[in-house]
């Protein structure tokens, strides 16, 4: 007797002929050398990202990205909303964990020489992912709109501003005005909940596709 799940799957399989393709994707064995904990760091980064997406969508339900409302809406989340402080704290810690995991993942890739031919492009996609993750954290940090985030942004923006030649233009695009203000908050919010998630989504697609095509690099 087929279980409910099997019947459900059979309905789709009958129409789309999924079995073969899915078998290839899901049943691919992990090479034994790649079960070492160091090889889990990429997956841990991804898990952090998924947690951030879910908790971020929840936070966006209450967060209001204007100078008047930002701080009080975060306070409202922390003090009034049921489980609000829980989900905000999970978002906060997952963000920190993600950055740690991404950096360690990069170390693993570097130290096992996995960036060498034929995986040059995947290394570059990874660098882009590291950058977007860092900008993710930086843009999120402004959103509570308290003194800490205001000055962290004011000071932090001096880093891209110090890039030779392009610096001032980059600063202008991020800041949206003469100093950190309502325009900056709007831009950072747009980055944080729209542009960066889209970019990360695309980069991850490329990253995972390349990993699958090329397999996990063999040990040195």
């Amino acid at each position, binding site marked *: 007797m087929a279980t409910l799940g099997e019947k459900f799957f059979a309905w789709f399989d009958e129409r789309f002929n999924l079995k073969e393709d899915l078998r290839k994707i899901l049943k691919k064995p992990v090479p034994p050398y790649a079960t070492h904990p160091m090889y889990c760091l990429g997956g841990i980064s991804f898990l952090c990202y998924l947690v951030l997406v879910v908790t971020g969508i929840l936070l966006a339900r209450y967060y209001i990205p204007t100078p008047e409302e930002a701080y009080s809406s975060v306070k409202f989340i922390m*003090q009034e909303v049921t489980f609000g402080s829980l989900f905000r704290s999970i978002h906060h810690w997952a963000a920190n964990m993600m950055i740690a995991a991404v950096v360690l993942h990069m170390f693993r890739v570097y130290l096992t020489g996995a960036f060498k031919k034929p995986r040059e492009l995947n290394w570059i996609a990874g660098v882009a992912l590291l950058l977007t993750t860092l900008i993710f954290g930086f843009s999120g940090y402004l959103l509570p709109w308290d003194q800490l985030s205001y000055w962290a942004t004011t000071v932090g923006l001096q880093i891209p501003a110090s890039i030779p030649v392009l610096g001032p233009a980059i600063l202008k695009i991020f800041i949206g005005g003469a100093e950190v203000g309502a325009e900056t908050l709007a831009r950072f919010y747009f980055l944080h909940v729209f542009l960066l998630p889209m970019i990360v989504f695309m980069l991850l697609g490329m990253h995972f596709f390349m990993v699958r095509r090329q397999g996990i690099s063999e040990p040195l």
Partner: protein
Amino acid sequence: MNKQTTRRKFLFGFIGAAFAVYITGPLAMMLKFLWPPRKAGEEATVVIAKASEVPVGSAKEKWQFEKFPAILIHNEEGFRAFAVKCTHLGCTAQWRVEYGGYKRPVLFCPCHDGIFDTKTGKVLAGPPPAALPEIQLEEKDGKIIAVRWKDLKYVKTLDVYKT
């Protein structure tokens, strides 16, 4: 086809059920999160009791206002309600028809012998630093209803009433 439950099928079902239980908790929490909370100071309607159930000289305890334990008191002047989370260290003050030298009803906090007045909520004796906050009542169809803090600003100054 084989109608028997194989060990494999049983274990898969078991793992599936465990997973379902495991995932229901977070999902329920997310739904609860999405439900908009009432803003502080917004009108509430806590139906406490029928007016006839609380005759003059008595009180009704064991109900809550804004998640704080509260009491409804009926004296010669009418109905009054207070939150009874003690302003000292947060124990629950209780109704006493008489207590010690007081030959009239008082609110008594058992933790450090705090005594509050039943008409004003003010401190009569003991360590509590401030009066119990009063709750505004309304009477509708013979029912007594708690609607809001009489003085929300005052409630916000009380440490043990921080949420």
